[in-house]
């Protein structure tokens, strides 16, 4: 058996687990929650951990776990086609999501093209931002945009009545219902999923660039089922596994897998200096909060 703790869509891990069990006969027990809850559980369990494989929604956790020496070095044979920036000695991305503008075409506003568009008067009081304190990806977006052009953009947004509204899903719902017109920095795959269901929502990746959130998968070094864990990683990176990931509208981490959505290479990815950005995290969040009057 292998125990997987995962942040991310429940349907994804359900399908991966089912597929893996079918292929290998190994049972998968999983625990699925937000990244925060998964980490809190691992932290609390630290005295007597049970998790074998961890799939996080934030690359940062992988870095941190590596630094703590909690991870088992493993490079899957299937990881050949995973770009280098999506893998390390201990970690490999399962898939990738990106941040975008999610815009409701029924909102009676012009379609935005750029982040800065949302600070225009047409969008007065109609923009939601996910809270960077609660979403790692949003934080990176804020940090990257701030590094690029300072706080001006966010000050404009705030002046234009943009509102910080909880985590990703919470920010999206008002846009779907029409209370707001757009999310500044929505997680793309959720919006794609909505669109697939017939919601009136468009996902717009600004030309000026955005950030991605790779979903690192790793094996904990205390795992008593290391072989099964490795097999699970292999399966996720296999054709079948990557197809399941693509079907949930995430970008597969292997570049050779097709998907029905823009892929990494189609996007302009903002460069960030992770170390510096995370070192200044508290300050960044504080400035952000001040701007949005929290």
């Amino acid at each position, binding site marked *: 058996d292998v125990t997987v703790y995962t942040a991310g869509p429940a349907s994804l891990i359900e399908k991966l687990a089912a597929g893996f069990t079918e292929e290998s006969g190994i049972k998968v027990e999983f625990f699925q929650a937000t990244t925060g809850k998964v980490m809190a559980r691992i932290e609390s369990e630290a005295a007597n951990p049970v998790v074998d494989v961890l799939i996080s929604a934030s690359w940062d956790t992988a870095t941190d776990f590596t630094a703590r020496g909690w991870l088992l070095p493993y490079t899957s044979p299937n990881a050949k086609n995973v770009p280098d920036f999506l893998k390390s000695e201990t970690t490999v991305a399962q898939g990738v999501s990106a941040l975008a503008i999610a815009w*409701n075409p029924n909102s009676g506003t012009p379609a935005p093209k750029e982040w800065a568009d949302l600070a225009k008067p047409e969008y007065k009081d109609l923009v939601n931002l996910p809270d960077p304190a609660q979403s790692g990806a949003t934080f990176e977006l804020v940090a990257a945009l701030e590094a690029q052009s300072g706080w001006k953009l966010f000050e404009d947004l705030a002046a234009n009545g943009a509102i910080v509204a909880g985590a990703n899903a919470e920010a999206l719902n008002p846009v779907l219902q029409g209370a707001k017109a757009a999310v500044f920095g929505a997680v793309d795959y959720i919006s794609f999923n909505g669109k697939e269901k017939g919601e009136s929502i468009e996902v717009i990746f600004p030309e000026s660039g955005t950030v991605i959130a790779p979903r690192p998968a790793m094996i904990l070094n205390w795992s008593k089922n290391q072989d099964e864990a490795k097999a699970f990683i292999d399966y996720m990176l296999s054709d079948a596994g990557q197809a399941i990931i693509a079907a949930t509208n995430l970008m597969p981490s292997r570049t050779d897998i097709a998907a029905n959505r823009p892929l990494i290479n189609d996007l302009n990815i903002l460069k960030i200096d992770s170390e510096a950005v995370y070192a200044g995290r508290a300050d960044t969040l504080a400035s952000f909060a001040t701007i949005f009057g929290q």
Partner: protein
Amino acid sequence: MGAKSVQPVNPAVLLAAIGLVIVVVVPFALIVLQAIFPELGRGSLAAPFSRLAQTLGDAKLLRMTGNTMLLGLGVAALSALIAVPLAVMRSLFRVPGALVWDILMLVPFMIPPYIATLGWIMSLQPRGYLFQLFGFDLAPFLFSIWGIIFVMTLNTFPVVYFAVSRTIEAVGSRYADVARVFGASGWKAFLRITLPLSTPGLAASLLLVFAMAIEEYGTPAALGRRAGFDVLVTGIDLRVSDWPIDLPGAAILSLILVVLSFGAFLVQRWLITRRSYQTTNGKPQSFEKRELGRWKAPVVAVFALVVFLATCAPLLAILATALSRTLSGGLTWSNLGFGNFITIFSDSTGALRALSTSLGLGVTAALLTGLLGALSAYAVVKSKMRGRGVLDVLTILPNALPGIVVAVGLILAWNQPWLPITPYNTALILLLAYCCILLPQPVRYATAAFHQLGDNLEAAARVFGASPLTAFRRILLPLIFPSLLASMLLVFAVATRELVASILVAPVGMQTISTYIWRQFEQGSVGLGMAMAFITILITTLFPLVVLSLMGKRGSLL
């Protein structure tokens, strides 16, 4: 017969003490330890108190604490305002359909707060259902402190309603009638006699509401952020969900909550021990409810209005969302359909399993907390044991602990490698979590009820040969049963939909209703989640109805 040493330990007290240690002391102690020793999770006692200064030095802490107090007091006050008049009507008069109103008032507990809040948001926000139907919205009100208090009150006032109506029912109208003979008008008699005599129930339930309000996460998080209104729980949640996880910080902040609720507890305790409220004595007086007469229609209208706001409005919002194909489609006929329900019924295995897990846990938690609550309340109010004050304090500790912190405490406690057996990673850990979080409800209700019982009723049972436990079972328990039953129904309702702790401690591979629903939301399938929520609310409502009708006459005590 062997004589024992002075005042042998009453087994009821002993049972209560053991139960409290397992359910409350263990997780609480670990939370305190965690607050002191940041590395506790890794089994290390290094760097004690190192996080204290940093956490308490937070510039926002004072404001958050102030906001938390404001919220708690506001919700308690508004709950009393709504619930007390209803409770008085319900307990002293023959209100048509009383049992139905009761059950309907239980529903707010069955709606997970985050769903209820979402329902309100989707109803009142710009272009929400209210706007779609009537062309206006109430967003400014909803996203303000008043909105938060309003929504939270609608979720909590039944606690006061049930407690006060049971208390007044036990008091009966006799004492007020006596006051009227001595010249008090009906209103004066109510103010001077009935209301003060219902202090135990009122104070206890307001304490519960206060604690629930200061530890509730969903509503202030969803509504408060926009109003710039942050409270301690949002701070706590941030610390446990934001990498790097700050468990000690969360533990320290929750201890502030505990201190707040402890303050409220002291006030409550002072109120109900200052005077005697023993209205049920050895010379029973039968008490018949009065007819409402020409007040029937207005009273029913008030009940209907409150039930509409607290129960029907969120349920309708949930239903509307569940029936909508897409959120963006709005309330148009073409956008409505049973697609979400069909999806659930076509792949119902997971949902059904979650449902039966939650119902099972809910029932067990209700029974266990009911028993433990009654025993602890007995130990505190009726036994003359030394140290019963300590038991009383124990029963309020979990009151204000956010579910997530309880969950952390439980994991810390029960996931130790040296434990020979552990409930961790079994359904039992969920049960422990629910018992810990919900124990205060039966305890407070039972405490209030015990304060109304004359001492001679138990004394007589003992003299006629009943052991302490038999006297408890045959005499005391039936006498407090109406209150206890109401609180157990509350426990059942809350336990079947508890989310925050469930998410964290649920054994791998096990889903409860709430985690099931929550996962639908997470994937953006709001409609699916709402459909599931609607179905489970129906089922959890039917369940107590069936149980109560099976219980026959005693069930109608509700």
